[in-house]
Each structure stands twice: as C-alpha cells, then as structure tokens.
C-alpha cells in the first residue's frame, strides 16, 4: 500500500515534469510561430500520425524511424547508467561514439571477410577501443585523483580531432566531393530488420539484448553490486572490503565498451561510408536518457523512445512550420530541470509521507488495543 503510493508519486512526478516542460515549450512555440496550433500538432502527434486529406493514420515508417534513432542512444544511455551508478560523472561517451564509429568503419573497409561475422568483428573492435580510451580518465582518477568529469569532457575533443586528423590525411576517399572514407564492404553492414529502406537494423535487437545484459550485470552480479554500492557510499564499500579503485575503473571501461558499440552499430547500420565531421551528440543524449531512467538500465529503452519521439516531433515542426529546430533544446532543458530538481513537488510528497505514517500509527495502535482486549 505504502510502497504503491510512493510509486504512484514517482510516476506523477515524472509526468508532471514532462507536462511542465511541454508547457514551457508551448509558450515558446506561441511566441515564435504564426501557426502555433499546427506546430504543436506536429510536435505532439506528428511522429506517429500522418494526416492525409483530413484522415489520420498510423505512420509505420515514422515509427521505424523513431526506433532506428533509439539504437545509438540506448547504448550510450546504458553506458551512462553504469558509470553514473558508480558515482563517476564520466562524459567521454560522446567522443568514444565517434572514435568507435570510425574504427568500425575502417575495419569494415580494410578487413576482408566473407561472413556475416564481419560486422560483429568491426563492432567488437570499436568496443575494445572504447574500453581502452575510458582507461585514461578512469586511471587518472584512481591513481592521481584527477576529476573524471574534467578529463573525460576534454577527452571528447581529443577523440574528435584525432579521428578528423586520420580521416583527412590517411583515409579520405579523394574522389568524393566531401570528406569521407571509402565505402565499407557489404559484409560489414548491419542488415535491415524490416524491408522498405528504413534504418531500423538488427542493431535495435542488439541494443535490447544489451539492455537485458546490463540489467542483469547491475542487479544480478557481484560486479554490478559493487558498482552500485560504491556509487551510493564509497566509504562504506571500502570499509566492507570491496576493491573500490578497480571497480571504478571497471564501471568506466564498461561505459566505454558500450559507447564504442553504439558508435560502431550506428555507423555500420545507417551509412555506407564514415562521414561524421563533428561529435554526433549521441553521448550527450545518453546522459539525458540515463537521468530520465534514474540510472536503471531497464528503463533506458523507454527514455530513449521518449527522446527520439521528441526529436522527431521537433524536426517535423521545424520542417513544416516556422518553428526553429532549437526548440528541442529548450524542451529538453526544461524536462531536465524538473527531473533533476529533488524538491519538485516535495510538499506533495511530504503529505503522502504524513498520511502513510498516520495510517501506520493507527494500525499499530489498533493492533495494540486488539491485543490488550
């Protein structure tokens, strides 16, 4: 009873945060658009409902597009969940997505294999590189006490410029008009899950498999347990005899591996050459997703879906109406604010607590009287 009330409260709180954020977004839409109602329609239902001649129908292609957009962000969301669970605010996922995508592409171009395993091997190379890169901020933190937030943030740009350097000077296909690599082999491409040219690939299935794997890791293994306990109370974990330094490194390496996979899967699934010239943004989105999911891996797909839906809606709004696409950032920031604000609706929470406690006390008093009689 009591737990259910608190659970309902958390749901109400989340819904209220989203509602307030959308309200804030609506205000901006009304301020910036001449056709605000039309814009709102695109934002809220556009991604899944297509209008033809006044008839609304479910937009299957739109649905696939949203699912496809979730692929890299599920991986980065999981990565951030693991790292934040250990209380390590590592932000290097962004750079690693790019680096991972790049090496996966190179492996797809320069390794020749005649088997379906080619793509898997490319992604594994990306994963290994991601883990290796994460050793830098992790070891700096554990051995020298350098703030992982600072080092990992800087590392993003190191990753980006190193990738751009090699792309420009060593691996660019000079016959193309823009800077990009040669096309990777067909064997390295990740196959589509549904016919019809959408970007929804087997990567989506892999992402869901990893949701389960990371869920198990965090809640059903000794490593995940240690990661979470260290995140909750490091002094307690050390006193209990856990290997705090090693576990902190492990959490970040896992984060790096997941980010690397995300980059590799995205590049091999969506494109035929590597052509990113700036950070793709999936790492940042992963942070939003992890916060929405409260670091719970099993909630990551939900949060990723929500963000993908919102992104798509804003894109449609910007394409078909006179609302700038930056709107997405405003709405995301507002959601963030209310989700992260611990005190949001705390008065309401306190009322529930008082009510619960009253009920408990009354029950206790009743049982005492009952016993006395």
């Amino acid at each position, binding site marked *: 009873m009591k737990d259910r009330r608190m659970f309902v409260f958390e749901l109400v709180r989340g819904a209220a945060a989203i509602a307030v954020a959308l309200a804030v977004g609506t205000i901006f839409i009304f301020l910036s658009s001449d056709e605000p109602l039309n814009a709102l329609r695109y934002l809220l239902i556009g991604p899944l409902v297509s209008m033809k001649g006044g008839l609304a129908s479910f937009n299957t292609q739109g649905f696939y597009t949203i699912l496809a957009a979730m692929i890299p962000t599920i991986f980065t969301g999981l990565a951030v969940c693991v790292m934040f669970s250990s209380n390590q605010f590592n932000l290097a996922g962004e750079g690693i997505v790019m680096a991972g995508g790049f090496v996966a592409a190179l492996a797809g171009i320069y390794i020749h294999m005649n088997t379906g395993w080619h793509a898997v091997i490319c992604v594994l190379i990306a994963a290994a590189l991601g883990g290796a890169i994460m050793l830098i901020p992790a070891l700096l933190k554990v051995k020298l006490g350098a703030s992982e937030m600072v080092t990992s943030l800087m590392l993003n740009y190191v990753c980006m410029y190193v990738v751009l350097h090699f792309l420009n000077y060593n691996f660019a296909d000079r016959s193309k008009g823009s800077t990009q690599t040669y096309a990777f082999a067909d064997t390295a491409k990740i196959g589509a899950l549904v016919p019809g040219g959408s970007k929804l690939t087997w990567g989506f299935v892999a992402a869901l498999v990893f949701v389960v794997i990371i869920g198990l890791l965090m809640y059903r*293994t000794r490593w995940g*347990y240690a990661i979470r306990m260290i995140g909750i*109370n490091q*002094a307690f974990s050390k*006193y*209990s005899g856990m290997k705090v330094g090693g576990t902190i490194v492990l959490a970040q390496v896992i984060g790096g591996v997941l980010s690397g996979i995300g980059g590799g899967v995205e590049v091999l699934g969506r494109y035929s050459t590597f052509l990113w010239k700036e950070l793709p943004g999936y790492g940042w989105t992963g942070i939003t997703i992890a916060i929405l999911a409260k670091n719970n891996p099993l909630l990551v797909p939900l949060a990723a879906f929500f963000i993908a839906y919102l992104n798509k809606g804003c894109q449609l709004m910007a394409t078909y109406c006179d609302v700038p696409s930056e709107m997405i950032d405003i709405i995301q920031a507002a959601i963030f604010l209310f989700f992260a604000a611990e005190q949001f609706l705390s008065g309401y929470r306190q009322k529930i607590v*008082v009510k619960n*406690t009253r009920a408990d006390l009354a029950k206790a008093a009743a049982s005492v009287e009952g016993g006395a009689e």
Partner: protein
Amino acid sequence: MEQNDLVVQMKGITKVYPNGIAANQSVDFSVRQGEIHALMGENGAGKSTLMKMLFGLEQPTEGEIVVNGEKVSLSSPTVAIAHGIGMVHQHFMLVPSLTVAENIVLGMVPKKSGMFIDFKKAIELTKEYSERFNLAVNPDAKVVDIPVGMKQKVEILKALIRGAKILILDEPTAVLTTQETTELFRELIHLKEQGYTIIFISHKLNEIKQITDRLTIMRGGKCMGVYETASITEQEISRLMVGRDVILDVQKDEAQPTDVVLKVRDLHYTNEWNKKMLDGVSFDVRKGEILGIAGVEGNGQRELVDMLFDLSEPDAGTATVNGKDVINASQARIRAMGVSLVPEDRMTYGIAEAATIEENLISDRFEEKRFNNGPLFNMKAIHAESDRLIADYTVLCKSRKQKVKMLSGGNIQKVVVAREFSSDPTLIIADQPTRGIDVGATEFIRKKLVDLSRAGTAVLLVSADLNEVMELSDSLIVLYGGKIAAYFEDTSELDDVVMGEYMLGLKRQSDEEIGRVCHER
C-alpha cells in the same frame, strides 16, 4: 516566590520526517521563567526533534509554539535567537582552527573603522561575558587545543552573547568527566540565579535529580507527563522513560582468556593539526575476553580504531592479528583475517543508506562462492542469508527489500551488527556500538557481544558510555591524551569517580602497572 509565567509553550506538536518517522506525536511542552527544566527520554524518544523545532532547525508538521506569550513561527535559528532562544548542541559547532574569542564573535564580528576585524574588542567581549557568567575560558587559545569542558563553555557563551535568555543544552554531560560535570552544574545554577531559563536534555537520572526544578518525560515520540523533580523518584522516572525497569548490569560468566589475538605495539600518530593523538599505545586483546577502552572522546580512541582497520596510517608502531600485520593490509585482507568492525560513524561507514537491507547485509561476503553461480548472483542463497540475519538479529522491517534509511537508528545498528557479528570473526572491534539507539537494541547488542566473547571471539570495545564500558568489559584500559593512563585487569570493583580521575588525566598508573596489558612480550 515562584514565577508562574510560561516563557515557552509548545502545543500539540507533531513532526513527521521525510523518511516517514513520526518523531513527535501531539507533544505538549512548556517551561517556566527562570527554571531548569529537564527534558528526559531514551535515545530516539523525540527530545532532540522537539528542541530542534524550538531552535528553528526543523519545522513542526502540526502544532504551535508560543514564546513569551507571543505565537511565533521559528523558521530558522536566526529567528529563534531573535526570540532569545539559544542552543548548545551535543556535537560542538565550533571552528577548531580559530581561537575561542574568534569563535564566540563569529557572525557578529566587531569591526575597526568599518572594515577590519577588531580582535582586541573580540577578546574584551569574551572576557567580559566570561566573568559576568562565571564561565572561565581562555580567549586566545585555539579551540583545537582546549579540553571538551571548555569547548562547552564557549558554546554557552556564544549563545549568551547573542542575547539568549532561554538556553537549550542537548545532553551536555555526555562528553564530560564527573569533575567537569560538577563544574557545569555550578555554572548552570549561577545562570538560573540571574534569571535565565535552561532546558536540559538528558537521560541520566542522578543528574536530573541534582539540578532540575521540573521535568518532562518523553517516550516513543509522545509526552509522558510533567513532574516536579522533588516529588518523583528515580525509579518512577525510569519506568516512565522506558516503560519497564531498566536492567543495566549485563549478565556474564567470568572470562577465560587464552591466546593473544590482537597485539598492538607502540602506536604513534600525529593528526593534521599537528596534535599527537596516539603516543606509544601498546596492548593485547586475548581470545575470549572483552577489553574495554574508556576515555573522554578525542583522546585517541577514534585514531586507534582507524589504524587497526586501515582507515589511516600510523607514524610508527605495529599491530598484528594472530601474528599477521594489519597496519599495511587492505580492508579486504583485514576482513579475511577474521576482523570485524562496528564503526563509530555508522551512517558513513556502517551502511549504504539508499541501498536495501539485503544489500547492506551482504557487503562483506557478496563475493563468496556460496552467493554466486558462475557470473550471476545466487539470489536464493542471498535471500536466505538476509532473511536469516533479519530474523536472528530481530531487525524490525517490512521486508529485506526496504531501504535502510527508512529504519530507526536502533534497527540500522542491528543491520550493521548482524553483518559484522555473523562473519564468524576472530576479533570484533566495537566502536560506540550502542550510541544513540534505543534500550531494546542496546541490550540485544550487548548480550550478543558477551555471547560472542564467551564463544571464543576476542572483543575490543571502545565506548564513551562509562556505564557500558565498565559493565561490559572484562578488563579495561583508559586512554588519556593518546596514552594509556590506566589498566584494570578486573572491572568489577571499579567506581566512576576513580575512573573520572584517570580519564581527566589527574592520575596515571605506573608504566609497570600499565605494561601488564601486554600479555605477550
């Protein structure tokens, strides 16, 4: 003669904390002008909560507060101080690196030409108040260097200088020796004579009888009544406080100590303020005995325990458990040697608040084979283990999945103790194992400690509760100024006056007498 006007009235106060604990339920509390009023109750009865609301640190969920006939809303300590209410906390709120005078004027610093701190004025002010209220302090001394008794006087002066007419003292004698307590009481009576009102929180019966006029007793968050101190006996008070007669002495057979388990030799440690906290401490703890460490807090007990559990490194000295070095070993290694620690700061070291009871119970053993199936946890075994521990240690909870922070202090400590005592330890270090927890849990933990020691575990008990350390220990050492001041092989004929003299540094045994605590060369 007696003035009947009430300076403080708290009516129908209810307080529910965000964790759902109803610390106060419809409590009525009032204090007369110029009296010393005791607020009594066991730990967790809700005394501190009530006083925190009177001092503006917490807001009541329900009820009203009337000060000097005026209904007030005490939204912060600043407001409370403006209404003439001052509080001296159990744990002093002083800046150790500043002088006494600087601490006293903190936040109301006298200025020279509107810009610079007038240190001279601060010292004069301190001296003036110190003389007026007969509270002797040394204005130039750094707070880190002064004894606990003087720190308390500094706290009282701080409140008085800010215009407090009503003083709340939260367990002021808890950290004092017998002699310092006597001195404090003289000063409090002096304040009372000058018209000040004092609210005195305590659960020590003899002290209450000694200096208070009236008393209010609380139990389980409720008010159990208000009495004239002269018209109620200690036995009656005790019954009202705990609802039954307290059994203070612990039943135990005589110890049969055998081999030395913990061997500490010549430990030295100097802290970050360059104060020597441990100065050549040597002792042994044997299998089957409880060795107590008594002493006023801050005389090296915490540092000693930290050394033994690798929470800090000594400057010199050795410590071994069954011949194995513990100074340079990690906590994992120390635990593997069979050492358990009930830490003093249970909220920092003992538990992970936001984790479940189950997760807290397995933190030292989750890597053991019996709890793992290959890479995955064996959840069945883990559930069985936690259910067993919850039952064995009578942890009051809804289920093993409940968050530890939802439990009461006594049950949180039971979670810590359940984990530490159940790992089949060869040595248990129990640091303030019953501080701040209810009588039931206290009795339970004490009994477990005795049982374990009689079953062959070596126990090192560190406690600032004189009663506890004297009742529970088989033998006892007193720490004073980082040195062992006394060793008593048999605790049965000790009395607290003698102990007080050693704890205060008035007396010290000869090196030869102290050396007897090292049973092995």
